[in-house]
C-alpha cells in the first residue's frame, strides 16, 4: 500500500512538474532569440515582445522551481531503499545539475529580471542566454540520471549489493540518454513554440498589435517546423534504442503479445490491456511495425509472452509485463498528435511563405486551441517511458516494489499526497489566472515603458520589479 501510494505521488508530482519544465526551456530559448533580435535591429517591437513573453516565462519558472524541489527531495523521502542502492551513481548527475545548471539558471534569471536598467544591453542579453543554457543543462543532467534507470551503464555492484560508479563517461554516451535528451529538448522547443504561437494568434485574430505579434508568430513557426520534423525521427530512433534495451516497453506499446515477423502496426484497437490479449483491431497496417521497430521491411518483434518467459528464466518468477493499456495509448497519443502538429506547422509555414498568415482566420483559431497538444504529448511520452520500465525501478537491477522507504507508512504518504495535490491545485489555479491575464493584457505596459522619457541619472529610481 505504502509502495503504491508512493508511486502515485511520484507520478503525480513529476507529471505536474513537467507541465512547466518544457514551457520554461522552450520559452527561455525563444525569449533569448527575441532579445537577440532586439539587440541586433534595435526595433522596439522586439523589446516589447521580449518583455511580454519574458513575463509569461517568469510566471512559469516560479512553479517549475518549487515543484522541482519536491522531485529532488522525493528520492530520499519516499524511495530511501532505492536511494541507498543507486546514490553512488545516480547522485552524481543530480549534484552536477545543481552546481552547473541550477546556479546558472537562477542567478542569471535574477540578473536578467532586475538588470534591465543596470546592465549594458550586451551583458543583459548574455544573461537571458545563460538562463536558456542553464535550463537546457539541467535537463541534460536529469536525463543522464533517468537514462541510467532505463539502461544502467558504467557501474558495478559492490559487496553490499549497491551500485558503484566505475565510468562516468559511460553515463554521458548512454544511447538512451543521447536520444532521450534530444527528444526532451525538441519537445520543449515544440512546447515553447506552440505557446508563443497560440498567444500571437490570439492577438492576430483580434487584429491587436498585429505587427508585433506577427513577428513572434513567425519566430515560433520558424523554430517549430524544424523542431517537430526532427522530433518525429528522433522519437522513432529512441523507440529503436528502447526496443534494444527495454524490449518489454516497446512490445507493450504495440500490445504485441506474440512474436511476429513481419509485423503489422495496430493504428487503433478496441479493448486491450493486460487481461485482454485479443483486442479488436480497427486498422492494422502491414509491415509498418517492422519498419518502425527495426528499421527493416520484414524485421521481427518479440512478443510479450515470449519476453515474459525470457525474463522469468533470467530474473526468476514474477510478472514483467508493464501496463499494456497505458503503453499502447500513450504511444499513440504522442505519435498522432506529433503528426498533427507537423501538418499544422507546415500549413503555417506555407501561409507565412505566401504572406497570408495574418488573414488565415481558421489557422489562427486552431493555433490557440493547439496549445493543449504539447502538454498531452509530453505527459504521454513520460508515461510511456516510466510506466514501460515497470516492474523495474532500475531496469534489471531493482524492482519498484522493493525500493520505497521502510520507515514511511501508508498514512504518511496519504498525508503528503493529499497536501501536494491541494497545494498543486492552488498553485496551478494561480498560475493559470496569471498566465491568461498576462497573455491577454496586451502591450500597454510595454509601450508605456519604451516611450517614457529618459530620466536624469542621479534622480533615477528604478520601478519595483516585484
Amino acid at each position, binding site marked *: 500500500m505504502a509502495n503504491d501510494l508512493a508511486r502515485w505521488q511520484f507520478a503525480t508530482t513529476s507529471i505536474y512538474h513537467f507541465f512547466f519544465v518544457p514551457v520554461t526551456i522552450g520559452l527561455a530559448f525563444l525569449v533569448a532569440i527575441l532579445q537577440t533580435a532586439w539587440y541586433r535591429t534595435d526595433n522596439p517591437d522586439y523589446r516589447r515582445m521580449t518583455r511580454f513573453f519574458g513575463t509569461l516565462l517568469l510566471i512559469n519558472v516560479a512553479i517549475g522551481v518549487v515543484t522541482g524541489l519536491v522531485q529532488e527531495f522525493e528520492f530520499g523521502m519516499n524511495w530511501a531503499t532505492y536511494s541507498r542502492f543507486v546514490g553512488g551513481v545516480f*547522485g*552524481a548527475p543530480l*549534484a*552536477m545539475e*545543481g552546481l552547473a545548471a541550477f546556479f546558472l539558471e537562477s*542567478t542569471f534569471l535574477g540578473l536578467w529580471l532586475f538588470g534591465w536598467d543596470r546592465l549594458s544591453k550586451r551583458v543583459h542579453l548574455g544573461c537571458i542566454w545563460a538562463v536558456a543554457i542553464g535550463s537546457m543543462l539541467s535537463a541534460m543532467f536529469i536525463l543522464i540520471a533517468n537514462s541510467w534507470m532505463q539502461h544502467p551503464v558504467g557501474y558495478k555492484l559492490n559487496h553490499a549489493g549497491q551500485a*558503484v560508479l566505475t565510468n562516468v563517461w559511460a553515463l554521458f554516451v548512454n544511447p538512451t540518454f543521447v536520444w532521450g535528451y534530444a527528444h526532451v529538448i525538441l519537445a520543449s522547443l515544440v512546447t515553447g513554440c506552440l505557446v508563443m504561437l497560440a498567444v500571437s494568434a490570439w492577438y492576430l485574430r483580434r487584429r491587436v498589435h498585429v505587427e508585433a505579434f506577427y513577428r513572434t508568430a513567425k519566430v515560433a513557426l520558424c523554430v517549430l517546423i524544424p523542431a517537430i520534423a526532427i522530433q518525429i525521427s528522433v522519437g522513432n530512433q529512441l523507440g529503436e534504442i528502447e526496443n534494444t534495451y527495454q524490449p518489454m516497453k516497446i512490445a507493450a506499446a504495440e500490445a504485441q503479445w506474440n512474436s511476429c515477423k513481419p509485423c503489422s502496426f495496430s493504428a487503433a484497437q478496441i479493448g486491450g490491456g493486460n487481461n485482454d490479449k485479443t483486442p479488436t483491431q480497427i486498422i492494422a497496417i502491414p509491415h509498418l511495425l517492422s519498419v518502425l521497430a527495426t528499421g527493416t521491411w520484414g524485421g521481427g518483434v518479440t512478443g510479450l509472452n515470449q519476453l515474459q518467459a525470457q525474463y522469468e528464466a533470467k530474473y526468476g518468477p514474477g510478472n514483467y509485463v508493464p501496463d499494456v493499456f497505458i503503453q499502447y495509448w500513450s504511444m499513440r497519443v504522442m505519435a498522432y498528435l506529433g503528426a498533427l502538429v507537423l501538418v499544422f506547422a507546415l500549413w503555417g509555414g506555407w501561409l507565412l511563405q505566401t504572406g497570408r498568415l495574418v488573414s488565415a482566420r481558421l489557422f489562427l483559431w486552431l493555433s490557440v486551441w493547439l496549445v493543449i497538444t504539447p502538454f498531452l504529448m509530453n505527459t504521454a511520452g513520460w508515461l510511456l517511458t516510466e510506466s514501460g520500465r515497470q516492474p523495474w525501478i532500475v531496469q534489471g537491477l531493482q524492482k519498484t516494489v522493493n525500493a520505497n522507504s521502510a*520507515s514511511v507508512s501508508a498514512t504518511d504518504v496519504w498525508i503528503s499526497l493529499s497536501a501536494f495535490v491541494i497545494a498543486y491545485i492552488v*498553485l496551478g489555479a494561480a498560475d493559470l489566472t496569471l498566465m491568461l491575464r498576462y497573455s491577454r493584457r496586451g502591450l500597454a505596459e510595454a509601450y508605456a515603458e519604451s516611450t517614457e522619457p529618459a530620466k536624469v541619472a542621479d534622480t533615477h529610481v528604478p520601478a519595483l520589479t516585484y
Partner: protein
Amino acid sequence: MQLHTIWFVVIAFFWVGFFVLEGFDFGVGALHALIGRSETERRVAVNTIGPWWDGNEVWLVVAGAAMFAAFPGWYATLFSSLYLALVLVLLALFGRGVSFEYRGKRESRRWRGGWTWALTIGSALVPLLIGVALGDLLHGLPINQNHDFTGDFFDLLTGYGLMTGVALLTLSLLHGATFLGLRTTGEIRDRARGAARRIGLLAIVVELAWVVWTLVVIGGGTVPQPTQILAVIAVIFAQRLAGTDNDGWAFVASGVAIAATVGEIFIALYPNVMVSSTDHAFNLTVNNAAAGHYSLVVMTVAAVLFLPVVLLYQGWSFHVFRQRVAAPPPSRN
C-alpha cells in the same frame, strides 16, 4: 585528509552557505509585512532580495544533492526520517517561492494579502524546521541497524532539535533585519534597524541557551568550542552595530553568527553524519554512508570546475545590485 572527509566539509559548506544567504531572505520574507507598513514599503522590502532569493535557494538544493551523491546512506536515512517535516518544508517553500513572482502581479487586496501571509509563514517555517532537522542530526533519532528511522513525526521534535530550530529562526530574523537596514532608505530602514536591535537582544539569549544545550548534548565538558564563542560574540556585535550607521558591519556580524552556528553543528557531528539514539553502533558515519571512491573523485573534479565559477558570478550578481532599494516616486498616471 580522506575524500569522504573532504566531502563532509563541502556539504557543511553548502549548508553554511545556504543559511548565510537564504537566512537573510527568510528573515526579510518573515518581516516584510511588519517592517513595511504600506504596500509600497512591503514591495520595497521584497525587492531587496528580489534578484537573489532564487539563487540562494539553490544552495539548499545543492546541499541535498551533494549528500545524495557523496553520502547516499545519509541522504536516504535523513530524508525518509524527516518525511512529514519535509512535506511541511516543501509546502512552506511553495508558498514563499511563488509569492515573490505572483504577489505584485494583481491589484487585488485579497490576492496580495494571501501571498503576504504565504511569504511570511513560509519564510519563518523553513529555517525553524530545517533547524530542528540539523539539531536532530546531532541529538540523535531512533534509527535501527538497517539505518531506518523507527519513530514517528513527534519523535522528530526533540528538545535540542527545537532549540536549534528556534536559534536558526531567530538568527535568520536578525540577519533579515540587518539586511533590510543595509538595503533600504528612510523610514523603512529606521524600522529595520529598530527591529534588528530588538531581535538581537532575543538572539543573544537564544544563542547562549543553544550553546549551553549543545555542550550538554555533545557531553564534552563545559569548555565552549571556538565556533560557539564566535557565534555568541557575533550576535552581540550584530545587536550593538544595528543601532549605529554601520549597517554593513551589522549585516556581516549576523552573517558570521549564523555561519558559526550551522558550522558548529557539523563540527560537533563529525565523524558521524547522523546519530542513532537507539544505539550508537547504528550511527551513520562518513565511512558507512559514503559513496564509492571513484564517484567521490568525479564529484570532486566537478566541484573544483564549477564551484569557483558559481561563487564568481553569484558574487558579481551581489555587486551589480549593491545599491539601496528605494520607493519610486508616485507615478503620474
